[in-house]
């Protein structure tokens, strides 16, 4: 099941050229660009691991694309996203976030129903991928 979170996730995967254009847009707006990766696709997993430090004060996207290539080389089997953080007063939050790399095979989620007191049902989503230990989740899929 294809994960859809952040911008552009219902579109076909962005090409490198398109990613460059998006990153350039972030830099032109003065946002700090982050590269983050994870192998836990749960939608509530907000804080992904960061690849290096946030990147700002750069005039051109080429340096960030180089970092992304490096990150893909090491964590090519995981989800990688790029986010742009706007530090200006009144925003101070992430303005854009989009997935730039995903595992070849995404096994998707199972819906768990827990029967609680008084015929209540509690629902939770369970990613099949997390049944294996961290770091091996998408290794040979």
């Amino acid at each position, binding site marked *: 099941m294809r994960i859809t979170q952040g911008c552009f996730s219902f579109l076909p995967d962005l090409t490198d050229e398109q990613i460059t254009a998006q990153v350039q847009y972030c830099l032109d707006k003065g946002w700090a660009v982050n590269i983050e990766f994870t192998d836990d696709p749960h939608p509530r997993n907000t804080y992904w691991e960061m690849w290096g430090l946030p990147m700002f004060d*750069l*005039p*051109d996207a*080429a340096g960030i694309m*180089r970092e992304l290539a490096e990150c893909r080389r090491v964590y090519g089997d995981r989800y990688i996203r790029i986010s742009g953080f706007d530090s200006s007063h009144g925003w101070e939050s992430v303005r854009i976030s989009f997935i730039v790399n995903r595992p070849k095979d995404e096994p998707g989620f199972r819906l768990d129903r827990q029967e609680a007191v008084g015929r209540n049902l509690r629902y939770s989503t369970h990613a099949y991928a997390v049944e294996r230990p961290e770091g091996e989740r998408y290794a040979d899929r």
Partner: protein
Amino acid sequence: MTIAKEKELEAPLETVDVRREFADLGIGAVLDQLDSELIGLAPVKTRIREIAALLLVERIRQKMALATTFPTLHMSFTGNPGTGKTTVALRMASILHRLGFVRRGHVISVTRDDLVGQYIGHTAPKTKEILKKAMGGVLFIDEAYYLYRPDNERDYGQEAIEILLQIMEQQREDLVVILAGYGERMEKFFQSNPGFRSRIAHHIDFPDYSDVELLAIAELMLQQQNYRLSSSARDAFIRYIAVRKTQPLFSNARSIRNALDRIRLRQANRIVSRLDRVLTADDVMSIEAGDVLASRVFSKGAMDKET
């Protein structure tokens, strides 16, 4: 029909008007500016013209869909202090930007301290950070030979050099590196790092300025600051240049700039010393012979002759 039209546009051109191409890019204006604002430096200007011509032809070839390879644009500027290496590097960035060979046209000027770290593992991130900043523009490394210290084999400079070489080779489209430094030491640097020499296409040597050129530089500097030399001050300054050149630590245009700063100081002092006077704009602008002749350079020169 629109598709047919688009195809027509994409088809390689068979003829290109060189004059129009030249005018469109506005290289002429940049080169003229170079000619008018930089005095002397004939070999440098010729070389820049050649590079500009090559880049223009390369663009035309692209339009004609002929095979093009991205030209190697890394450069090395050698010359004595104050011969205009940094100034030309700044101009170079704007020329390359106009021709479309660098995307942003900014210059990041660094020295050894900015690239080389202080402990193991510090150098690589530091160098990469600078390279990231310079992407899409020009990286100007002043006194590049300090990167390599042959007397210390555990020096981290070597690490910075390796990263630099790698990026210079792999990301030629993204970054132009300009190395600068004094002639002899750069020569030594290239000898011990042959990788650098082969990756740099343009070696440009900056000659020293002649007396006439130095005077022209001084007059240009003064003109930009709304000052001018009176005719007697001009004669005095010609003598000043001749004497200053023979003294140690002479660094071409930089020495001239410093001399002018001191002359302005003395001029201001002269004006302020007589308070009961009505000044005209002319008085404030003009520099008199006395302002120049009060320089220590003359007294020192005279003393040297006596001893």
